[in-house]
């Protein structure tokens, strides 16, 4: 019997087998942000264990509420900042250099095929786009990861998801993953790694693959993963060029990680997306998904473009293509949060920021922002947001608010028209 990519990564990182059902893995990267890490830091200090297993393997960012909005978030930032300095963690990103963790860390080259990665953040599954095993964990797992460089997992099960056909014009990775989450339900991939295969995935760039893997957790998945290939190698080349003589050599090594043809899967599913049309959520669960045609005319008060799902440069380009020369409908507020400083700077160079501003958008600094209603962009009771984020839970963007998840093009179109619409008709 062959092995899945996850089984191969587990085997090469095995530290301990504490029971028949569990494995303790050595970690390559432990990522930290200011919401879930400070309580771990305080606990380590109280236990007289204020140290880190390897400062170079810990990557730290303040991203959820930044710049700090009040005394409590200022304290969270300070706890994280002080800890990073006293433990000689050099990859620490504060205002001016910070951005949404799952956009910033890949951009910095911190994610590599075959790596084991944890973070106290459920959307850590994003990094599986690089052929890594990357999982969201709680604060205690994070604390042990910081201290010992290990994390326990139940032995992985994997499902194989083939995405076949050709993605139609105007339909994106976001539409694909919304459709898959709808089909699987919010519990369909619980305790499983979701492997994404097929010609559609092969043709996707890294940003689209990150969007795809980002929402694996919305089906309950432990991690979303794409097989690392030439696209992966080319994205990472500036960071790995000293390790390999050629891109071909990198690709050849990456291919040894690929799941074997006779690997064991709990499920194997095939989706043909050639006829897929833009999708959006309508309820308070991410599997409550309909086409934008079915939701046509649903009024919106706010449009939010950003987040670890869709705040990257390709997302801004798509939204700007819809917005160019147009303005937001009367009464609609638009917020753009470029996910990282590089995304922001690139968008300025390309003239995209001007397009957003001319359309009437407010442009914020890189931050998680409105996505989880912790800092800016919070909805009032009864208000509706067309959002490029990943969660539509009740109260997520503000108590009594409603969030419709969709692609950047669909969100931009909703802003112009004042309601959910099919952007392809604009």
């Amino acid at each position: 019997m062959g092995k899945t990519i996850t089984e191969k990564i587990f085997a090469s990182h095995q530290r301990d087998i504490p029971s028949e059902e569990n494995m303790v893995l050595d970690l390559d990267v432990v990522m930290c942000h200011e919401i879930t890490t400070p309580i771990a830091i305080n606990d380590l200090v109280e236990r007289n264990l204020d140290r880190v297993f390897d400062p170079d393997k810990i990557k730290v960012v303040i991203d959820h509420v930044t710049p700090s909005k009040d005394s409590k978030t200022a304290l969270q930032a300070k706890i994280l900042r002080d800890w990073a300095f006293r433990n000689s963690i050099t990859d620490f990103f504060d205002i001016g250099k910070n951005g949404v963790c799952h956009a910033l860390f890949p951009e910095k080259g911190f994610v590599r095929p075959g790596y084991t990665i944890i973070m106290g953040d459920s959307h850590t599954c994003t990094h599986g786009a690089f052929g890594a095993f990357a999982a969201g964990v709680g604060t205690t797992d994070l604390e042990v990861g910081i201290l010992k460089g290990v994390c326990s997992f139940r032995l992985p099960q994997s499902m194989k998801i083939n995405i076949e056909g050709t993605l139609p014009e105007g339909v994106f990775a976001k539409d694909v993953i919304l459709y898959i989450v709808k089909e699987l339900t919010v519990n369909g991939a619980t305790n499983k790694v979701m492997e994404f295969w097929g010609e559609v995935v092969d043709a996707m760039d890294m940003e689209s693959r990150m969007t795809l893997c980002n929402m694996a957790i919305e089906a309950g998945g432990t991690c979303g993963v794409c097989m690392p290939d030439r696209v992966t190698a080319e994205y990472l080349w500036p960071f790995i060029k000293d390790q390999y003589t050629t891109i071909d050599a990198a690709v050849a090594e990456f291919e040894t990680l690929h799941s074997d043809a006779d690997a064991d899967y709990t499920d194997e599913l095939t989706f043909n997306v050639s006829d897929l049309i833009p999708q959006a959520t309508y309820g308070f669960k991410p599997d409550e998904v309909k086409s934008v045609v079915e939701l046509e005319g649903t009024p919106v008060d706010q449009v939010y473009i950003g987040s670890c799902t869709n705040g990257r440069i390709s997302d801004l380009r798509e939204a700007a293509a819809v917005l160019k020369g147009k303005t937001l409908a009367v009464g609609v507020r638009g917020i753009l949060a470029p996910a990282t400083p590089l995304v922001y700077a690139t968008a300025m160079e390309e003239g995209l920021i001007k397009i957003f501003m001319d359309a009437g958008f407010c442009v914020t600094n890189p931050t998680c922002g409105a996505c989880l209603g912790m800092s800016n962009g919070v909805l009032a009771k009864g208000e509706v947001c067309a959002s490029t984020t990943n969660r539509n839970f009740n109260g997520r963007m503000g108590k009594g608010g409603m969030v419709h998840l969709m692609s950047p093009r669909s969100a931009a179109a909703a802003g112009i028209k004042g309601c959910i619409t099919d952007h392809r008709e604009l």
Partner: protein
Amino acid sequence: MKNFSGSVLFLDRSDINTDEIIPAKYLTENSKIDLGPFVLEDLKLEGFDPQRDVAKAQVIVTRNNFGCGSSREHAVWVFEVNDINVVIAEGFARIFRQNMFNCGMLAIELPAPDIDAIFALGTDVAIAVDVENEKLSAAGGGNTLELSLHLNSFDKDLVRAGGWLAYADQKY
């Protein structure tokens, strides 16, 4: 080990998510105890009043995929500081389940018929969990159910150790 017995709070719905258990706006607290008053604040269930109902309970019995969504361990701590150390469900989201055992608490998975049977005991139900012998008794409405349960040996070790940090600090 913590206390794993007491009165039951029934939450009769699947897919209860972490934002319903503890909304994100409270994640700015740097102390577990300060989370306490906000438990299940955004959970809308008919007849359920978190302020009134949580105070009486030490055990939660619910349906499937409990704790889905965010990785926030706050969703476990908010129960811990309200003296609820056991959640019994048909199934859990992976991260929530691990967070429970990492804190030395119990996330017990039972087959749907067993969950149905506990719900059928009525509204005034008490449960006692015997970790070592992997069984529980549920009493209510003049009836008592004795149910067996499976605990993975590693999860049991975490409960005995009082959580993953204590276990890992000793072993690795």
